[in-house]
């Protein structure tokens, strides 16, 4: 690990200022991904600003839904009674990810900022457009069974590894952030980016912005929601493909549908075509099958 300085922030403004003042500074929350990447020299910040003492752990009901503090751990969110009752897909997605130890350490904010587990990105012996822009992509001609089949570019076919974010995409979550120039809200589907020509930029969050919370709107479909994950072993593996599905059903008719796919793209992928086919239809196996066929039309393996 390259040397760095360590600063423990006692309030948000101080933390944001510290990171804004140094281009090579990063926020430290659970550290489960960042410290790992630093050990492999994939990332080498010169300063870590520890935000773990900030009061950002609360999970609370709001007039419009649920607000989850950015420092709430995966375990806390997954086991929260309100989450389990009203947003079961989120609890299931969190329990489907990582190991119990990692879930105790990892936070909601850090989970949004997870980096890809593309083998070539993680290994500094290889070129990688995400790690070193312009150096090339060995995954395209290389081993790529865990890579993107949707939204990839000539530059990068990495996928986003998070399970939580797939559930958030299905739940129309909104990410609340604060920076040196104030606060703003980013809808989850605009938070992560497709690789395009800038695969080194994972998200639309500015480097000096701090994620403070995530809002989950109460919606008819949120309660009837599930997460299904296919992977190489039963636990503790990243998704080969996963789906977060939510339906608002009224007397057998689908009022609203949400389908988000994980493990297949550079961001959680909303299957909007399929959602449109389902919305307004009678819920039946036939209709569900039709929606899958539609969403599959845009699939494509490595470019």
């Amino acid at each position, binding site marked *: *690990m*390259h*040397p*760095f*300085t*360590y600063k*423990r922030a006692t309030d948000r403004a101080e933390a944001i200022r510290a990171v804004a003042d140094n281009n090579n500074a990063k926020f*430290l929350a659970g*550290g*489960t991904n960042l*410290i*790992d990447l*630093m*050990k492999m020299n994939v990332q080498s910040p010169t300063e*870590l600003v*520890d935000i*773990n003492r900030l009061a950002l752990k609360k999970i609370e009901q709001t007039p419009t839904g649920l607000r989850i503090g950015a420092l709430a751990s995966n*375990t806390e969110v*997954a*086991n929260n009674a309100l989450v389990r009752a009203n947003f079961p897909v989120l609890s299931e997605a969190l*329990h489907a990810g*990582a*190991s*119990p*130890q*990692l879930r*105790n*350490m990892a936070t909601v904010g850090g989970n949004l900022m997870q980096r890809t587990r593309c083998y070539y990105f993680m290994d500094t012996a290889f070129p990688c457009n995400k790690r070193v822009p312009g150096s090339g992509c060995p995954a395209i001609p290389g081993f790529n069974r865990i890579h993107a089949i949707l939204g990839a570019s000539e530059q990068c076919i990495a996928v986003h590894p998070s399970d939580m974010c797939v559930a958030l995409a299905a739940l129309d979550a909104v990410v609340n952030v604060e920076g040196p120039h104030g606060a703003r809200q980013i809808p989850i589907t605009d938070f992560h980016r497709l690789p395009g020509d800038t695969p080194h930029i994972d998200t639309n969050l500015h480097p000096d912005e701090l994620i403070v919370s995530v809002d989950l709107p109460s919606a008819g479909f949120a309660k009837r929601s599930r997460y299904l994950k296919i992977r190489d072993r*039963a*636990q*503790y593996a990243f998704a080969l493909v996963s789906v977060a599905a939510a339906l608002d059903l009224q007397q057998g008719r689908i009022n609203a549908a949400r389908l988000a796919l994980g493990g297949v793209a550079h961001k959680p992928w909303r299957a909007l075509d399929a959602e449109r086919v389902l919305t307004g239809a009678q819920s039946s196996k036939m209709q569900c099958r039709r929606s899958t066929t539609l969403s599959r039309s845009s699939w494509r393996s490595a470019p």
Partner: protein
Amino acid sequence: MERERKSDERAAERAALAREPADTVASGDENEMDLFLSEDGEARRRFLKQALIAGGGLAAANLLLHYQMNAAAQTRAAANLASAQTAAGTIPVTLHINGREYALQLEPQVTLLDALRERVGLPGSKKGCDRGQCGACTVLADGHRINSCLALAAAYAGAEITTIEGLAKGDELHPVQAAFIKHDGFQCGYCTPGQIMSAIGLLKEGCPAGMTVRECMSGNICRCGAYNGIVAAIEEARGAKV
């Protein structure tokens, strides 16, 4: 001249080695520990060479090779550390471990695992993968199991850390420790401290609905494959409501 002197030194060293093995091997634990703990590493190299000469065999040769590779890595790490000290300096970190307080002066990059093993003198928590994948380093922080290899020591200042060394009360084992022994929940034992700490975390947290003990222990790998004994030990401890 230079070359001659070196070759003389080597001859003297060979002679010394030929004489030493019996003494050293018979010298008991304390001297062995001194050898390993010596600062310059020379004594450790000597010990391993002696083992090679005295015992012969592939295992000793492998051990020596492993040691030499490790020594090179350590030299690199030491160089990194030196630059860290000049670039970033050390910071005061007070850790609370097994009910005791330890005031340390650490480089920021020191993990909780390295602080426990190398600075505090509690080597019970093991370094397996050092990447948060194997669980050998599992400890409790404020009652929750975590991978201490991915935790910066500085970030855990003030947390109540419990390691395998903090479980037994004198000669009385923690019930989970006793259950592991009763059910043969290990073979080589390297992953065991992490397995036991993880099991205690699991019993406290509870297994989420629909998940098995195996799934709730997915963060701990046992290379020997002692999983049946591990699961049996945890099931028993769970029944006893530890």
